[in-house]
């Protein structure tokens, strides 16, 4: 205690205290904060909050009643899933015009996103946000997911979801980081250039199989560094950069070793 008392007036003491305080607040928040805010139980208050958020942040483009304006789609009937996908991945509100809306850190927290989803869902019936069970990769069959993915998705997203190019600067994003819920929602609602895969086209179970396949791909390759899983172009680049680079270096070294 004596040592502590002696150092009380050390000039770094406030900094240490501040750090401790921050850690405690953060820890308590993490322990007490609501883990997931699901829009399963929609209250009128949520819808009201959502409407206010919508009018403040979205109405400029989508119209005061989400009816859409010229070149901007109406949101009546897109459902909670579409709103949750667009807002939770940061695509909406859109940062700037471009070939397509890019993902960025989300602008709204989970509660606000849920409120927005609830508001838009109240405008007309549409796909709902999937439950945790619907997107649980452990319950899916990755083998069936592989077959479905390469028939329906790989032509844009690459064989293992590493992403690919579309026309005029648009692209199908890589799926390494996308959450299971967002993958499911994308199939369900078809954001941007992506087609809609409704439940008649790919059943909810099959969607879960695809999620399961994609999550399996994140474990990496059995053969070592996956080199971006981009196929022969990146392999060729590495063959020249690493392989031939080392070997020419070795040749110069051996050549310089005079006899």
């Amino acid at each position, binding site marked *: 205690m004596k040592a502590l008392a002696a150092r009380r007036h050390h000039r770094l003491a406030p900094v240490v205290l501040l750090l401790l305080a921050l850690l405690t607040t953060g820890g308590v928040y993490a322990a007490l904060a609501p883990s997931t805010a699901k829009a399963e139980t929609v209250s009128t208050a949520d819808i009201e909050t959502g409407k206010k958020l919508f009018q403040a942040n979205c109405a400029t483009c989508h119209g005061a009643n989400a009816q859409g304006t010229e070149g901007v789609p109406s949101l009546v009937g897109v459902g909670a899933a579409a709103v949750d996908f667009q807002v939770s991945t940061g695509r909406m509100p859109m940062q700037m015009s471009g*070939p397509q809306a890019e993902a960025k850190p989300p602008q709204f927290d989970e509660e606000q996103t849920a409120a927005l989803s609830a508001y838009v869902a109240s405008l007309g019936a549409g796909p709902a946000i999937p439950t945790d069970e619907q997107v649980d990769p452990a319950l899916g069959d*990755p*083998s069936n*997911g*592989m*077959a479905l993915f*390469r*028939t329906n998705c*790989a*032509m*844009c997203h*690459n*064989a*293992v979801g*590493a*992403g*690919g*190019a*579309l*026309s*005029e*600067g648009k*692209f*199908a994003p890589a799926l390494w980081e996308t959450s299971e819920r967002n993958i499911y929602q994308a199939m369900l609602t078809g954001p941007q250039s992506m087609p809609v895969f409704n439940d008649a086209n790919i059943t909810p179970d099959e969607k879960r199989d695809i999620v399961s*396949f994609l999550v*399996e791909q994140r474990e990496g*390759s*059995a*053969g*070592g*560094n*996956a*080199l971006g*899983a*981009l*196929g*022969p*172009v*990146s*392999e*060729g*680049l*590495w*063959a*020249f950069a*690493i*392989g*031939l680079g*080392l*070997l*020419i270096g*070795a*040749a*110069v070294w*051996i*050549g*310089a*070793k*005079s*006899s």
Partner: protein
Amino acid sequence: MSTATQDTKHEAPAKPTTTVGKAADYLDQRTSIGVAVKEFARKVFPDHWSFMLGEIALFSFVVLIISGFFLTMFFEPSMALERYEGEHPASMHGQLMSVAFASTLDMSFEVRGGLLMRQIHHWSALIFMASIVVHMMRVFFTGAFRKPREINWIVGILLMILGLAAGFTGYSLPDDVLSGNGLRITDGVVKSIPLIGSFMSYMIFGGEFPGHHIVPRLFTLHIFVVPGILLALIALHLFLMVLQKHTQYPGGGRTDKNVVGYPAAPVYVAKMTGNFFMVFGVLALMGATMSINNVWNYGPFDPSPVSAGAQPDWYMLFLEGSLRLMPGQGTEWVIFGYTLPLNILIPAVVIPGILFTFLIVYPFLEARVTGDDREHHVLDRPRNKPARTGLGVAFLTAFIILALAGSNDLIATHFALSINAITWVFRILFFVGPVFAYYVTKRICLGLQRKDRELVLHGHESGRIVRFANGEYIEVHTPLDEQERWLRVNYDAPAPLTIAPKTDARGVKRKGYGADKRWQGLSRFFYEDRVSPVTPAEVAAAHSHGEHDELTGSEHQAVEAGAGTSREH
């Protein structure tokens, strides 16, 4: 060995005492192999690191043979269907696939060391082709293809083409979606050939694509025919190299009539062994740490899916790019009910045809326009043949632009560009780029030659400024030593061909004048712009008028004394 050779110098050869010596003596008494060993061990090879590029190709071929031998034991070249029962990878469990694909999975996940061997084999194939191309670049830019080595140049091109064939046939064996896409393109290319295309496709695939025959057929080609011819041609390539002696870089004392270097044994035996282990080590390291061609990513072959980022291995990428660049609309003609698909024929047959033809005819073309039938054993410095160097760089530019065009989707996603814009840029660059590259390279070469002339005539700038008594400032130049000068003045700068006049003395038109005129035109293209090497007379003249630069001892001191008050530097 050394005891044995020393012993032979004695008048009465003593019996060898060591075990190795005894064994060598035993062998020698029965085969006279000592003569051959002595001859070869004392053969002199010139020294340069770039002469080891071909060795890298040779050694990666050895690794290919060894690893391929292993893979052959576990691969089953059959297109019969089976359901995959293996647990790894989970995404393949229970899928219907060909036996070839299943055995590839089995080899990768069940056989001990199988995946490592597969990856070493594939990386070796990429490095084999890469080192061949780099070796060819060395040969081309230094003029090593000149007489008497034109035949070996052709053998080398055949080796490269066989390397492409080996890569292509091997790539298609696992029967996965990606290689199946490649086969589908091959099928399309074959079918695009007028008149015989469809029949050839039926012949290759044993019916309509994909059929049930292509994998076993490619397997036979891949493990038997192609490597067999490759081995034979490699032997011929090396035999010709030894027979014609290795070329050497220019330098003091090196002429077309000698070889300056070290004996094969022990110097090059040691260096080659070291290089072999380097190649083996790097390839094993790559195979162990970097995944390549994970066929389970693509899944068993099915003609319908094509994934984004579907490309061939790098050495075929130029063909892919050529196909991607070709506009599709309006280039498929139907003539009298026969389809002439120029959209395939031009990019996949004509363009590679032009590229390969250039490589094959170049040595003969250059000899013709140079009017040169001498033997050459001293290499050119690339700057001293500006037109050749320019053409080589133009060729590489075209090749690289096509390869980049083949990767246009990855360029689009990784650099956030529009794939349409990239394609148009490459379409234009394919025509403009090589011309621009030729011009720039040629000017750089001529500039370097002028720099060499300047150096030979005036020496190196020493950075030391001195002032004369009369107030004149000069910078002292140090003259080049003999080795430096030799390198810069010993080259040919051929002039364009001179031809006999159009008419003879009686005014009769000469036969063959038109052809001569055309060759002369081509020769002008090669040699109109040239920088001649400095002649001894020019050196002498430069030294006589530039006496300030070449100060003799006594003058030097006088200048030093006179410069006492001046501010140096």
